[in-house]
């Protein structure tokens, strides 16, 4: 038997913008075991419910993570609204959906860029991020912020979009879709990209379910599950079809995210076509009393928000189970048996979001 050695990976590593630490147990070049340890960005945000009242906490929830910010605000507000029996106006539901889908576009383009960077494909990385700027410009125009938008509030949204803004969004996504074509071709059909992705890091359907994978990771292993079908926001009026891939390898995960981008373009178009006129928020009185679990589909997978209140201004408990928390055990499973040189790329294919995970 070959000699075992342990190689520390991280916390500061060029391929990841965020610190995460893994101890890789190797036999020669092959990974046989992985011990993840987290905690570098742990801030204790769930504990802040003791110091911020339930309306102020929306802003904290949005700052759990800078990439999934819009979704975190939405998930938190949905949970509080469910407890307090607030019916949000239809226009607000559509606006929320448009913003959340836009953040999915921005998140997936960001991931594609990082994936290209991990493969050492610099021009593809730059090209993906260049396209992502167009979505950020639209966020800037509609919400006033590029990354943190602060549009959700308990009872609706804070800002409305006029028809000029909606038109600009349509133009922006048409533009991105047109310019995406060469990128799609490279990611899905290029020989060099395929040789890095195909058959690498395979996660079988049974493993994906047993290890609790979520989101594109689960769908890439052939499981049809997309929390958007639960019908929160405006999704119950829109056509959502879970996008799956059969092989469960890195290429499958790339393919799923690529197709989800185009799905998001279609959803944004459909939502803008159907958006009703009306109010964007309802007044909120009283304090939440009760508990509720909300599931929403974030770009990285299903996130679960739990809110418990007891009729006071300050909540008893807020809990967020992020997609990456669920995706770490399958990642550990998937890394076993791979080559050391593939480790950075494979970690990236789960689209890790460490600041969400550690909160």
């Amino acid at each position, binding site marked *: 038997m070959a000699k075992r050695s342990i190689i520390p990976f991280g916390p500061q590593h060029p391929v990841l*913008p965020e610190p995460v630490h893994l101890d890789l147990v190797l036999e020669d070049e092959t990974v046989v075991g992985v011990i993840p340890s987290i905690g570098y960005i742990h*801030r204790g945000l769930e504990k802040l419910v003791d110091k911020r009242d339930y309306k102020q906490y929306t802003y904290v929830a949005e700052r*759990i*993570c800078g*990439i999934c910010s819009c979704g975190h605000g939405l998930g938190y507000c949905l949970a509080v609204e469910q407890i307090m029996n607030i019916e949000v106006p239809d226009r607000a539901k559509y606006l929320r959906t448009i913003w959340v889908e836009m953040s999915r576009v921005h998140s997936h383009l960001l991931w594609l860029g990082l994936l290209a960077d991990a493969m050492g494909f610099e021009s593809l990385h*730059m090209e993906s991020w260049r396209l992502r700027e167009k979505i950020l410009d639209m966020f800037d125009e509609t919400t006033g912020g590029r990354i943190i938008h602060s549009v959700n509030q308990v009872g609706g949204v804070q800002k409305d979009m006029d028809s000029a803004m909606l038109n600009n969004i349509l133009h922006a996504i048409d533009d991105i879709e047109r310019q995406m074509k060469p990128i799609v071709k490279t990611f899905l059909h290029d020989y060099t990209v395929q040789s890095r992705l195909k058959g690498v890091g395979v996660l079988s359907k049974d493993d994906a379910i047993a290890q609790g994978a979520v989101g594109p990771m689960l769908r890439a292993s052939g499981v049809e599950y997309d929390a958007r079908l639960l019908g929160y926001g405006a999704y119950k009026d829109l056509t959502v079809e879970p996008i799956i891939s059969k092989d469960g390898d890195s290429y499958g995960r790339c393919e799923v995210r690529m197709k989800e981008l185009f799905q998001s373009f279609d959803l944004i178009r459909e939502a803008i076509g159907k958006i009703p006129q009306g109010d964007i928020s309802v007044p909120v009185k009283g304090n939440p009393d009760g508990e509720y679990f909300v599931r929403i589909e974030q770009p990285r997978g299903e996130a679960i928000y739990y809110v418990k209140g007891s009729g006071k201004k300050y909540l008893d408990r807020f809990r967020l189970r992020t997609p990456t928390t669920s995706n770490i055990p399958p990642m550990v499973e998937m890394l076993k048996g791979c080559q050391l040189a593939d480790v950075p790329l494979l970690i990236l294919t789960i689209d890790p979001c460490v600041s969400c995970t550690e909160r």
Partner: protein
Amino acid sequence: MGKVSKSPWLLHYDASSCNGCDIEVLDCLTPKYDIERFGIINTGDPFQADIFLITGGVNSQTESVVKQIYSQMPEPKVVVAVGICACTGGVFKECYNIKGGIDTVIPVDVYVPGCAARPEAIIDGVVKALKVLDAKQAALEAKGR
């Protein structure tokens, strides 16, 4: 020795940020903002870095990492705190696991406010840091190095 500020290398570390500022730092390197036109390159190696960009407040886990990276960087070096969390602790200030801004651990030369700090602000901060870098280099040379 020529001026380091003609082509300084940049090292980025996320102390405990929400990711927002980190993404904007990376954004600065991509085509729209393109910080490379100032000769700046992002490096992963502290031994080759001149500018240390930090995002997020410091917690007890990252404190030693930040100190270690800072001590590994060669003189002259400048530290840029990006985002309101790195300046003062920001929204996370009252969290039990946050010590406060970066200046509670290492000396900071330039503060860039914002939540999340905009790329324009980050570039402004880095350009300002170049002047500090020049001044530090001049001071070192005056001491005969």
